[in-house]
């Protein structure tokens, strides 16, 4: 049992984190909305204060969790809305993955925001970038500390929206805008899985709170019908995780998402957003204990993604695409670890990969500049040493090489077989509707046309 003082401190800390990010976002958005000019220093200071206070709150949470043990600690902060038994309770849960990922997220965002201050200096969207960064970290903190699938969905959606808007950051070029839409479409399609999972859990347990569900599973309180719904929930969660972490067949959006500013690419697709899939699976692992099917599907999904990512990465010629496919490969491996039950290793892998990949992506834009500078200094071209390892694809069948060049043909299938077919079907239905309603309207207008025609002929005769 927690002492009342400790419980109070934890409640304050865990509530302050999302609340403060929300306030910072609103403070940044209001001048932006009304077109009031504010200085870069002011914007950065608002962000810095919010991040600093919340990092302290994170440290308090780590200390509290170490005092209690490994948790989990459940906190209820009232309810947003409710009607009868249907309630949206604001529940938080503190356990090792939650606190580690939550505090790590705040730290990473603080580092990237410090980097961005100079990187985006005098850029037109400086204030917009920081407002969206606050929206992103608000979503992340909600996902990290969520104590129910309902709260998790809120954070999940906010991360998706902020990611989309940051991909379209350079809004004068059409390509980032199209890529942002592609990412948003993938997010929303896969989020249906998360919503179905929430609905299934509501149906089985009457709640989506992790603590209640874990207790119910422990008491064997659900029957065969409920078990099938539970499997549906688990597959829904897996679908949502696969979409957010760009697993096969949803991997096409991630390399395109690199169109955004480098700091946002680093924080989203190198560090935090891309790992939300594994975090979701780790947070909800208690909901499907020992399910061979779910573990098997997770491993297969991860394996396919890792192979796909590694293959495509090796034929890519631009650095950001290579890094994107590198991220896809690593998240595939993390999925395998989760499927195999190595949850702690998966969490360490997430943190390690996030840190390393962020550094690589942040370094990417200045790499070419540094290289040309080095060549100027040396007075000759520096050609990389090509080893047999770099041309490994020459010894494997051509079909593999073609697969890599075409990115597995996933984009073509999506464009032509799925989206194209739906558009063609809808267009033909619309043409039919147009023809029928046009016929009806014209036949109803015929008398008036005939009368006006007679009048015209009379005028001509006269």
């Amino acid at each position: 049992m927690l002492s009342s003082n400790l419980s109070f401190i934890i409640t304050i800390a865990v509530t302050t984190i999302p609340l403060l990010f929300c306030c910072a976002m609103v403070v940044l958005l209001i001048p932006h909305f009304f077109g009031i000019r504010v200085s870069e220093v002011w914007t950065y200071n608002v962000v810095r204060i919010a991040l600093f206070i919340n990092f302290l709150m994170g440290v308090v949470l780590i200390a509290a969790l170490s005092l209690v043990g490994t948790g989990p600690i459940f906190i209820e902060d009232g309810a947003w809305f409710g009607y009868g038994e249907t309630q949206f309770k604001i529940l938080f849960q503190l356990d090792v993955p939650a606190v580690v990922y939550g505090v790590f997220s705040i730290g990473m965002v603080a580092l990237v925001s410090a980097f961005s201050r100079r990187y985006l200096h005098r850029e037109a969207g400086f204030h917009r970038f920081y407002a969206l960064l606050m929206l992103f970290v608000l979503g992340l903190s909600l996902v990290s500390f969520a104590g129910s699938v309902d709260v998790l969905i809120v954070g999940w959606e906010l991360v998706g929206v902020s990611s989309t808007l940051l991909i379209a950051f350079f809004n004068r070029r059409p390509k980032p805008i199209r890529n942002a839409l592609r990412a948003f479409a993938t997010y929303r399609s896969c989020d249906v899985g998360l919503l179905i999972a929430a609905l299934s859990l509501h149906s089985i347990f009457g709640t989506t709170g992790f603590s209640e569900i874990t207790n119910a599973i422990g008491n064997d309180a659900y029957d065969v019908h409920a078990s099938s719904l539970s499997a549906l929930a688990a597959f829904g969660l897996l679908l949502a995780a696969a979409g957010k972490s760009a697993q096969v067949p949803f991997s096409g959006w991630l390399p395109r998402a690199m169109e955004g500013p480098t700091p946002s690419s680093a924080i989203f697709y190198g560090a935090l957003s891309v790992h939300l899939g594994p975090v979701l699976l780790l947070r909800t692992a208690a909901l499907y204990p020992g399910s061979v099917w779910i573990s098997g599907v997770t491993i297969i999904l991860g394996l396919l993604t890792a192979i796909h990512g590694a293959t495509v990465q090796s034929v890519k010629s631009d650095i950001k695409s290579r890094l994107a496919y590198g991220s896809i490969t690593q998240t595939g491996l993390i999925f395998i670890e989760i499927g195999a039950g190595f949850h702690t290793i998966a969490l360490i892998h997430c943190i390690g990969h996030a840190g390393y990949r962020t550094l690589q992506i942040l370094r990417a834009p200045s790499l070419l500049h540094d290289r040309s500078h080095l060549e100027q200094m040396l007075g000759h071209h520096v050609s990389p040493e090509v080893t047999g390892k770099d041309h490994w694809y020459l010894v494997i069948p051509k079909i593999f090489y073609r697969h890599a060049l075409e990115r597995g043909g996933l984009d073509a299938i999506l464009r032509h077989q799925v989206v194209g077919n739906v558009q063609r079907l809808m267009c033909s239905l619309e043409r039919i509707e147009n023809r029928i309603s046009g016929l009806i309207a014209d036949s109803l207008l015929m008398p008036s046309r005939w009368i006006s025609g007679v009048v015209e002929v009379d005028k001509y005769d006269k």
Partner: protein
Amino acid sequence: MTNEIYIMILVTIMVIAALSPVAAIDFIAARRNSMIFTVIAAVVAGVGVVLESGLHWSINSTDPRLSAKLIAFAALATGVVILALSSARDASRKDLFSICALIALAAAAPFLSATFLPYAPIIAVLTLAPSLLGEIEKKRALVLGVFCSLVAAFSCDLSLAENQFSIGTIFWALIVIGVPPFHSWSVRLIQTLPLNVFAGVVVFQVTMLESLLGTIGDETGLPLSTLLGGMALFAGLFAVAQVDARKAIFFIITCQLATAGFAEFGSEEVAIVGSRYLLLTIITASTCIVLLLGGLEARTGRRQSLNTPVGCYESWPRFANAFLILALISAGLPLTLGYLGSDLIIQGMFHTHPVGTTMILVGAMLCAITMMRMYLYLFQGSAGKRQPSDLRLTELAVTFGFMLVTFALSFTLLP
């Protein structure tokens, strides 16, 4: 105050509001006159609500008298916003007449008896006649509207639908909501009418749908609910396939109306409350998006296409931000009114209609994608040398006020 006197007062004020533009010398004076009378009507409606329940009114009220007065108030308040956001660039005095007449009809709809309710759409289409007389396409829309509403009204039997299965009533409801494939009349209206007049049509559709609650029994309601679930998905698919912004927003609103209808006739209490919140989202956020799209068309002088990004964020940041926030509210972003409505609907309906609920989920997902596409393609991109003006102060104040109202409404269902 009895309902008859109450509605007579409101309708009289709104008829004066509709006719006042005729006497005005120019558009500005006409709009001012209409707005004054609409504001008076909205205040009277608000007083009616307070007299009915004191200050303890609630959106999920089960009292039909209070509920009707709340809907009338919501319709009139939205009418004020529609008039405030109409300008000489995108509306004429004839359009002001149509808007006021539609809002009057929308406010009166919840008070109409089952005998008169089926004929309300015919009157609604006829009030659009001044705006629709002109080119051949407009005439076609008018003729089709009158034809569909006449056929639907004569096939409808609401008194039968109270206790028995009535296919005519289902047909009538599908036409009023305008879901595919019964959308021929309404899709032509959005293509030919000025968008602020079409916003009035949306308000009318919302109040008609709300006034059907309690009029249709389970024998007719449950099949209608199932049909609407499928049609919400269908409307979502149509929305995502559009390249014309007007048609895209039309199918989004249709999908939302179908979702609300799916919940309303499904006889699940939680879902019915959810449908009321979703209807509030449509009447506030979605209507405001229609108006903003109208403003955008007036500024650029052309119809908006979703083929390529043609916006100019730097020129109109306030416009873009307002559109984005309203689009996210309408699409059901968490922590907004739209999310509250959708969440209650899917939670309420999943136990009894899992397939229908999954279909409306997919429909809502497709609508959210279309909304984001509209924002990205209309407000971002390279507009070239064009430098259209941003939202004016009045427009900004009205839009911001609307956003605050939707935000406040999302906290009215405390457990």
